[in-house]
């Protein structure tokens, strides 16, 4: 899973390869035999090498029972991003594939078949705009993730906590109770692996505003002010560490080990995307504890008395523009989202608007969490935030500045919360002035 969150590095090289190939596609998409009934043999490319021969084999059986004229073959790629980028230089990249992160939106039309307009698909599916360009949708999410904190219910109960914290201060008080009442480490930063720190950025939806990043973040001179998302989230991280509520030595943490620590109750809480829940449950069971101990709570911040959590699509299924069996490929995508139950089994939110909520998010349901789908940046503005990030050299999606934040909080580097946030705001504002709106 770690690799999935590090794909941006690969993306850069892959994008260069794809940019070249975008001009080379010679096949006219209009000529392919895509009308009529789904039939023929299709190849589905997946990144799930672990379950392609088990779960996916069941999917094949069920799908072929429903569409007897279609035969489905799978190809699972270990290094999905790297391998698919090379294959997309040819026309032979399966019939159904996942849209790689390295393809930019304006390249969609040269690689993928449009599935319908935003309005059409938006009536059935969530987050269609994530894979849309000029009102055409090119992909449907395989599952949808949300953001929050994984915690060990047993430990939190042992500390006598019954209600979910609704503010950062309550959260800190709860962690303090855990430190006082139990032997568990209240919070684990996963500082050494780095990427888990980047998860702190992924929940801007907690501010309850779908337009948040189009009006704040790269459109604000003070993202680290006390009432803006980075001020709230990074501020909470700072306080957790400064109050000594995190692990003793953050520099030697270990991601794989942290899963067992949380599963067995030696660590009480970690901030991670909802994709982590099933992994934590698994390691709890592997370590002889119960999967029921693992809970998931929303970020401790409420707007008008309600929790909000950002939802974002995972990889998206798309149809190869060169496919000879587009109807069959399209049928697979719809079937995968509607019938396969993949998202539910993975503990994710269904890509369908009225799909089932997974058991793993039962806590969210109970807490009345409202899901927020972020509005993508308007056309021409897509790169604005990345430009500011690179100019300011504050890696919102990385770990460098947050590691320094943790270092300052634990007294291993000079400064304090106010001075560091002031410095970050200053660098951010300067970068915004350089980049321009």
């Amino acid at each position, binding site marked *: 899973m770690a690799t999935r969150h590090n794909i941006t590095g690969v993306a850069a090289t892959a994008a260069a390869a794809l940019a070249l190939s975008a001009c080379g596609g010679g096949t006219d998409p209009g000529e392919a035999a895509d009308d009529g009934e789904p039939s023929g043999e299709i190849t589905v490319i997946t990144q799930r090498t672990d379950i392609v021969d088990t779960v996916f084999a069941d999917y094949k059986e069920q799908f072929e029972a429903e569409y007897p004229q279609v035969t489905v073959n799978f190809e699972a790629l270990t290094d999905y991003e790297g391998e698919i980028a090379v294959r997309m230089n040819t026309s032979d990249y399966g019939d159904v594939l996942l849209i790689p992160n390295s393809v930019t939106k304006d390249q969609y039309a040269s690689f993928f078949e449009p599935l319908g307009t935003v309005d059409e698909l938006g009536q059935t599916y969530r987050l269609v705009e994530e894979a849309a360009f000029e009102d055409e949708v090119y992909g449907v999410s395989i599952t949808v993730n949300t953001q929050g904190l994984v915690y060990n219910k047993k430990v939190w109960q042992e500390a006598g906590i019954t209600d979910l914290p609704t503010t950062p201060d309550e959260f800190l008080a709860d962690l303090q109770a855990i430190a006082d009442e139990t032997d568990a480490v209240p919070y684990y930063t996963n500082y050494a692996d780095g990427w888990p720190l980047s998860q702190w950025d992924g929940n801007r939806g907690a501010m309850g505003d779908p337009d948040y990043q189009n009006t704040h973040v790269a459109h604000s001179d003070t993202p680290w002010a006390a009432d803006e998302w980075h001020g709230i989230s990074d501020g909470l991280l700072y306080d957790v560490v400064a109050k000594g509520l995190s692990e003793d030595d953050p520099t030697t943490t270990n991601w794989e080990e942290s899963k067992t620590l949380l599963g067995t109750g030696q660590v009480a809480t970690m901030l991670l995307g909802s994709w982590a829940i099933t992994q934590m449950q698994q390691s709890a069971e592997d370590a002889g504890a119960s999967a029921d101990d693992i809970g998931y709570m929303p970020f401790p911040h409420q707007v008008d008395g309600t929790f909000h959590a950002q939802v974002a699509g995972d990889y998206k299924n798309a149809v190869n523009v060169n496919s000879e069996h587009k109807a069959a490929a399209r049928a697979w995508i719809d079937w995968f989202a509607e019938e396969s139950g993949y998202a539910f089994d993975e503990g994710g939110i269904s890509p369908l608007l009225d799909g089932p909520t997974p058991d793993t998010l039962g806590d969210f349901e109970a807490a009345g969490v409202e899901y927020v789908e972020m509005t993508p940046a308007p056309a021409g503005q897509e790169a604005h935030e990345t430009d500011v990030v*690179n100019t300011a050299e504050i890696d919102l999606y990385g770990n460098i500045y947050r590691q320094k934040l943790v270092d300052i909080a634990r007294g291993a580097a000079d400064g304090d919360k106010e001075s560091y946030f002031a410095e970050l705001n200053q660098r951010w504002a300067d970068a915004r002035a350089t980049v321009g709106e």
Partner: protein
Amino acid sequence: MSTVSSPVRGAAARSTALPAPAPRRRGPGRGWKVTPWLFLLVPLGLLVLFTYVPVANMVWYSFTSWDGMAPVKEPVGLDNYQRIFTDPDMFSVFLVSLYYLAGAFLQLVLALYFATVLSFRTRVRNLFKGILFFPYLINGVAIGLVFLFFLRPGGTLDAVLALVGVAEPPQWLGDPDLANISLASTSVWRYMGLNFVLFLGAIQSIPAELFEAADLDGATSWQKFRFIIAPGIKQVIGLMTILAISGSLAVFEIPWIMTGGANGTTTFVIQTVQQAFEFKKFGLASAMAVVLLLIVLLITWVQRRILPDEKVDLT
């Protein structure tokens, strides 16, 4: 790149078109003038293609604001260099190199000591040679991971210290005052074997009669080291010193694997990598690489001035 490869190809084509050599016999030293160049063609071509062209490109990038992907490389003059020399954050990382520099000197002294001891008749000396050289053969990533577990709280080191009564050991990597020392020590452990083997080889090339004569004169071990070994391997010591200094400026592997540059362990090269791949500033990163190259060249030049390349004469 085409500007480089085409003259090479042109020269190769010309050579095949040359007339057969004249039947007249040529004496030694009077041969055909182009011959040595023909032999040098391939190595020189490869050298230019894989060393000088990339370096030239790097120098050119260092004057641009290239982001690593854009087709256009916008020239920005000396902006990147100005940033490196005016932004205190850029240069302060060289302070981290001081830890490695101190480590490097310790490493040279230790290596010289072991090489001297083991060049004399010592029991099971081949075993000791093997033990000392062994760490150098392990791959750097493995060393990083092994030492990560060795140094973590409750790890091997702490367990050993607990046996001798140290109840509360410090955080070897977590304490910012110790982190660089721990990393530099790991580096010493890894590279001492190489220095040791090179010193040992140099010592063994000193004629054995000198030691015999010294024995007859009743010289002590220290005198043998002071008056035979040290002057005899002066060149190698000089070379090792340059390599140690430039190596300590360009430390990358061990801190990158063990701490990723966090907790004040960022070295100049780690910072270069972060600029290039995290913030897409290939122009600035290239300028940093050029600056590092110039610093290493400067140090080499200074060292050559202090220790001129003279013939060693032990007699």
